[in-house]
């Protein structure tokens, strides 16, 4: 159950990364111009999401290991 929750949050973080990347790319390619602060926010949001995914996947791994040990 808890592993499923981790997976959902990881997927949401991935979506957030993709969205921010699209935003930055559109700005670079000149489709539209964004305020510098928004771009900076998007970049830091990507970094935060990456960190969150790392932490969450570490936790998920631990839970899976414990689950495997318990079932054995």
């Amino acid at each position, binding site marked *: 159950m808890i592993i499923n929750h981790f997976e959902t949050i*990881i*997927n949401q973080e991935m979506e957030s990364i993709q969205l921010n990347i699209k935003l930055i*790319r559109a700005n670079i390619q000149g489709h539209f111009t964004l305020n510098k602060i928004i771009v900076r926010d998007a970049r830091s949001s990507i970094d935060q999401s990456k960190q969150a995914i790392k932490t969450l996947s570490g936790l998920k*791994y631990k839970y899976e290991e414990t689950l495997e040990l318990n079932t054995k």
Partner: protein
Amino acid sequence: MKAPYDRLKENAKFQIELLSYLINDASLYIKSIDIIRPEMFTDKNRLIFDAFVCLIRENKKPDITNISRKANITLDEVMEIGAYFSGASTGIDSLLYELYQFMACEKYMRLAQFLSNQVIAGTESEIIKEYVVKELRSLDFGSSSNVVTMEEGISRVYKIIENNRKSVNCTGSPVGLSVVDKHMGGLQKGDLIILAGEISHAKTALALSMMYNSAVLFGEKCGIISHEMTVEQLTARISSLCTRISAKHILTGKLSDDEVKIFGSKTSGLIKSNLIIQDYIKRELSDTLASIRLMVLQYGIRWVVVENAGNIDVKGIKNNDEARTAEISKSLKSIALELNITVILISHLNRDVKGGKQKQPELNRLKHSGQLEADADVVMFIYRPELHGYETFNEADSDDIIESTENRCKVYIAKGRNYGLVKTFPQFDPHTLYISDHIMKESEIFFNPNNNFDDNKPF
């Protein structure tokens, strides 16, 4: 100055973008399994793709954490690929097209190199031809593009004959229904069977009874994709067959302590069986086909029930039921042949426009018929004359038996490619909706040790 076009670099971009699509939506892989090839990916991308496929086969979720662990690649790198977006493609189809073109170009160049090397070395032309043809055929979509000579065809038929001689009666998958087991020798691979009947004439009950017998009593692997019922409803109906408690009572009534005990003890066989139910999917033909592929890939099912033809939509075909039904039957027949399984498609009937008591349905009443009838190997009807006020079977059809119609139904084959026509009158239990007339003994189905045939030497 604009940078020159780099084919390899561009291809690497496409590879990563395709992987990104797959990681974020694994169902895309099953939908395009015919086109996606491992050869499309190189280096690290190939490792990630292999890990992705491996996880799907093991029935594990192919997310970034599992992929990074399986492929032995750092989470950062997989994350980078998962979040990649080049903006160069408009969708997975254009990506696949580009990658396929690149893969084909590479193959042609390798073949040209191979040809010049072999010609210089003086290799026999037959050997070169064989290799080139094999390589070119690998570029075709699907696995059904092989040409077989008569020698190979006859040897395959011999194999079937020898295997059939080992089993006494049933050469395909047994289902506990004499019309299938005795007459057709079980469900045969590659067949599309249309199961049709009027509303509330127990079409689904017949399909579920067949599944229960096949999976629980004979240990076969089978699956069902229903666009009408939930997993709970289907499971309750199947479990009512073994517990003898009606599905309605299981789902809506209050079960007594004794009934709960019976439910617990009688469903143990069902739990261990290989009966697979598809959870909710979109009512799209492509999703249905993807689900069948996944069932075969992960669970190795031998036959599948699809319920029902009227509920499946086909992309690009609207307001034309005939074209839609034709597309469904064509696709299901081709997937049955490609995956070597049996597909049973449940279909409704058109209303009988004639007045008076309704007669038993015929082929012309198949809903949006034509192609459906032509593609099917077997068209099987189920008919319950008691619902139309007939007391004996011969009242409905003068050729039928003079027996009471109470709690009985008529199952008959109206089209039987390779099997001919036949009719039976099995029992129908209105309490559990169980239909059965013939349960084969184990000795009738499985290998008889007294017959000593060698599999490897058919001649």
